[in-house]
């Protein structure tokens, strides 16, 4: 049974078709990268899957359960979590209290263990708004991973990070996904991150799937090279 199954999803903004009959299937434990040029529909697809987007057609199933009618909070409670393009934390709460708040809702997770896992213990009693940007990104990811959700959607997790931090994030994500058995779907523009951690890649262009496959197949795909990768791969 796939962890995530998206079938024939269409979403329009006025006359602009952001998603045009997209279908994809992600296996449990897989790390799937969504790549494509700006305006391809990557973030919109993440928004549809997570419940942020409204007025779309098609089908979204999480472990064979139809989640299309559930709101974001309900989706989180059954194990679908996400992060955002912009860092999304609670700036006036301490690092510890917001992780505790997140853990209390999904139950059973030790927020202290998460603090340690993400190297945030020393900052636990600082207000999140006062810590460095890189630490805020880690906190953002930590919030999304509280409760070890079976499916994690990441929207440009490496945005604004240095090369070093991006590499570290990619390695950490890979290890955590395996250790905690989390299926990951990520949107990312940093091709180094994408090719180093993705099991499979879906390439979107103009709201449609241009290609899907293993990183090596995508790297060699002529249509993908022409439409997006160029010499980046």
């Amino acid at each position, binding site marked *: 049974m796939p962890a995530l199954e998206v079938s024939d999803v269409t979403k329009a903004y006025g006359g602009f078709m952001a998603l045009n009959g997209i279908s994809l299937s992600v296996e449990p434990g897989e790390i799937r990268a969504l790549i494509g040029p700006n305006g391809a529909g990557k973030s919109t697809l993440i928004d549809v899957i*997570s419940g*942020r987007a409204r007025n779309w057609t098609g089908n979204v199933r999480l472990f064979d359960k139809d989640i299309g009618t559930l*709101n*974001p*909070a309900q989706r*989180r*409670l059954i194990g679908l*979590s*996400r992060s*955002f393009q912009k860092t*999304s*934390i*609670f*700036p*006036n*709460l301490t690092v510890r*209290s*917001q992780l505790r*708040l*997140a853990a*209390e*809702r*999904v139950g059973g997770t030790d927020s202290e263990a998460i603090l340690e896992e993400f190297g945030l213990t020393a900052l636990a009693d600082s207000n999140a708004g006062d810590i460095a940007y890189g630490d805020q990104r880690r906190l953002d990811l930590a*919030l*999304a991973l*509280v409760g070890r959700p079976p499916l994690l959607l990441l929207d440009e997790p490496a945005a604004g990070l240095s090369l070093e931090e991006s590499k570290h994030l990619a390695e950490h994500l890979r290890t955590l996904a395996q250790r905690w058995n989390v299926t990951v779907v990520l949107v990312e523009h940093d091709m180094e991150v994408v090719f180093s951690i993705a099991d499979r890649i879906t390439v979107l262009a103009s709201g449609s799937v241009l290609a899907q496959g293993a990183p090596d197949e995508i790297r060699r795909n002529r249509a993908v090279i022409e439409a997006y990768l160029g010499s980046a791969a």
Partner: protein
Amino acid sequence: MSFGRVLAWIVLAAVGPTMAWLPVSLLAKSLLAQATFSALFALGVGFLLRQNGMVSFGHAAFFGLPGYMLGALLPLRLMPPEVVICAAVLLTGVLAFVIGLVFVRAHGIAFGMLTLAVGQAVYEAATRMRWLSGGNDGLNLKLPPKLFGLSLNTLQQPTGMLTVSWLVMVATLVLVSIIAASRFGILTEAIRDNEERARFLGYRTLWPRAAVFGLSAAVTAIGGTMFSLYNAFISPDTVHWTASGSALIMAILGGSGASWGPVAGAFVYFFLKESLDSYTTHWLSIIGTALIVITVAFPAGLAGLVPWARQLIVLRQREDRVAGA
């Protein structure tokens, strides 16, 4: 709660009764008692500002409603008067919660306008429904000779009322502080900061926000009830939007960063107004100027002065240590 904090609350609670029994003029005691009503009003407004980040222009409705409820229900003698008084506060809170389920969906200026509309609707009802509210003439409350074991005379004399209203104010302040520090308080602060993130952590955000609106109205209603009991009278002026504006000024003056901020702001505003009123009829323009200066120079209000002073002391100590080395 730490021992130091408990001690601070006890000392604060003792201030009012001590003042009440000191040989101070009755006028001063009466003004202090009235300041506690305003403090409770501002505490409710400040709680909404702190927990939801929302500005209400209609809280005067919740200040005046319990008085009108007492005026309408007490003569019917359906229940013991103490029950009617508690029910008036509770009903005001519940009513605000129900309204809040719709209103808190709006943000910023839209929310402010909705509260203004409700406030003015209550004001219009108070002026036009003469058979119930007494219209512009107001309504005399028919209070029983004893309430909560206290004689009515005690509640309507400055000394007695100052003792009672001060203790009620401190108890409410303690309760508000406990709520703000509770899991519910942290959740509502989180929702205020980043509602979308809270939703994506699995929280429903509408109910907690509406609950804050209801609680803030109930706190304001406690102040309104004390006001009504002291004066045994309620009039449309009490529910006019300018009263909401004054409470908002008190809350901003005191700062919503700490629960006690709006209470401190209310006392400063109240006594500033009383002092200036005897010198000039343009006291409001002086308060307005002071408000502009405070908003620009100390956006966190009086409550922001404490962490500011603490930071200043730490910096001085560090400088001294560096100079000593």
